Every structure is written in structure tokens, then in C-alpha cells.
């Protein structure tokens, strides 16, 4: 029952070590075009200020806490979402430019655009007449 309440009220603060907290994997779509990689992740109920994105070395971390608006005195009677946290990590490859990642969160869907390094994009080489 405490799990249910947690899912609905998603209380934060006074939480223990965050690495040990339970989290579920968000579902993602990942696709690549000439300019870079796009990642879409389903993060329903995660407000912008509870979303954390970080790049450590070549690893991209996505973490978010579910915090729906709940009225005073809410008591859970049925819960399918019991773990109010999403977490997933991805290994980036060298030709991606992790310093230029663009992120957008709209209606619970995170869109990440990771461009390729300029030198990794296809380029035509002019041949000089000698």
C-alpha cells in the first residue's frame, strides 16, 4: 500500500541514496539520420524540474521522477504505476557531439537530438588541379 501511495503522491525530500532507489526503464525510440541521432523517451508525469539529463564520459543518463498533481488527502485505491521513477542510460559513440545535445520535454515525451561532430558529417573534398 505504501508503494501505491508513493506512486500517486511521489513524495520527494528526505530520500535515501538516489542510486539505490528503484526505477523503471522508460520506453524509447532511437533513430539516426545524416546529421545525428534522435532519441524519444516516454516519461509520463515527469515535470520539467524533475527531469535530469547528464553526460558522464561517453554515457548519457536520463532520470525523471513522476510527480502528478494530487489533491490533499489522496488515498490510493488502485495503482499500476508503483515505481514513480524512470532511469535509463545509453553509451554514446565518439563521432557524436555530446556538448551540443538538444532536449525538449513536451506532454511527457522527451526528445533528445544528439548531433554528429562536424568532422564526422559527410563532406566532399575538392581536388586541386596541379
Amino acid at each position, binding site marked *: 500500500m505504501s508503494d501505491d501511495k508513493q506512486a500517486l503522491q511521489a513524495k520527494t525530500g528526505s530520500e535515501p541514496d538516489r542510486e539505490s532507489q528503484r526505477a523503471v526503464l522508460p520506453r524509447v*525510440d532511437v533513430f539516426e539520420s*545524416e546529421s545525428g541521432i534522435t532519441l524519444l523517451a516516454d516519461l*509520463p508525469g515527469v515535470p520539467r524540474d524533475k527531469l535530469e539529463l547528464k553526460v558522464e564520459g561517453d554515457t548519457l543518463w536520463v532520470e525523471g521522477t513522476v510527480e502528478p498533481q494530487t489533491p490533499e488527502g*489522496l488515498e490510493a485505491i488502485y495503482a*499500476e504505476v508503483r515505481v514513480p521513477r524512470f532511469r535509463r542510460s545509453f553509451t554514446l559513440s565518439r563521432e557524436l557531439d555530446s556538448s551540443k545535445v538538444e532536449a525538449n520535454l513536451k*506532454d511527457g515525451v522527451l526528445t533528445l537530438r544528439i548531433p554528429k561532430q562536424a568532422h564526422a558529417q559527410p563532406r566532399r573534398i575538392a581536388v586541386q588541379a596541379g
Partner: protein
Amino acid sequence: MFDSLLNSPSSLFGDFERLRRELDDVFGATGFPTSIRSVAPGTLPAINVGRTANSIEVYAFAPGLDASKIDVTIERGVLRISGERNAGIPENDPKVTVYSRERGSGSFMRAVSLPDDVDPGHVRASYREGVPQVSIARRESAQPKRIAVQ
């Protein structure tokens, strides 16, 4: 219906689900009754239901919907939430390579049977951060009352 978490690659639950289906095939389905509207585990959107002294709150975890296409109805004590989601991956683009396709698309519907004490005349629905939330008032007769002792 959004396709299930069970289809995700490298998902432990996917392996469990396959095992469960194989066991069902061998031993036949188990005799435990389930709710007539229950869905396979992992089917989206997931639903949470809560109550306060004066309302019932239903949360559906359905990200990426067009808010104008979400349909909420209450009929004979059953709340239905339906909607539709477009695919996030561009279709038929030869320059696009798809590595992962776990997010489902298409239309979905979830139904919740409500307690008898709700008042279908007082319903509020909102869509925030990918969560359609429906709040249905409970009738006054169901709300806690203090009785004066003579």
C-alpha cells in the same frame, strides 16, 4: 493499443511473459478470476486511481497525445479514456536508420468502473505532462459527516 513492454528487447519481463504463455499452453489457463476489464500486464497506458473525501481521481499515464483528441466519457458508472498517438519515427525515409522502436503508436482505450457514490454531473479532466487526469466528485451523502450528539 500501445504495444506492450513485453515486446521490448532484452526485457526480463518479456522473457517471463513468454514463459507464462508457454506454461498456460501446457497446463491450461489458471482458474483465478480476474477483473473483466483487466489488460495484459505492461499494456499502456497504465492507470492509477485514488480517492479523497470528496472526489475520485483517475490518472492515465499516456504521454505524447494530442490533447484535443483525448476522449473521456462516463456511461453507466464506467469511465472510459481513449486517445490516439502518432508514431515518433519518420516513416518511409530511406536516410533514417531505426535502432529502437519500443514506444507504441495508434489508438488506445482504457475503462475504469467507478464506485456507486460518484456524481457524473461534476467531472473535471486535464492533460498535464502526458498524464490525462479525471476528477469525479463524490455525492454529498458519501462524504464524511459529523453528527451532533443530543
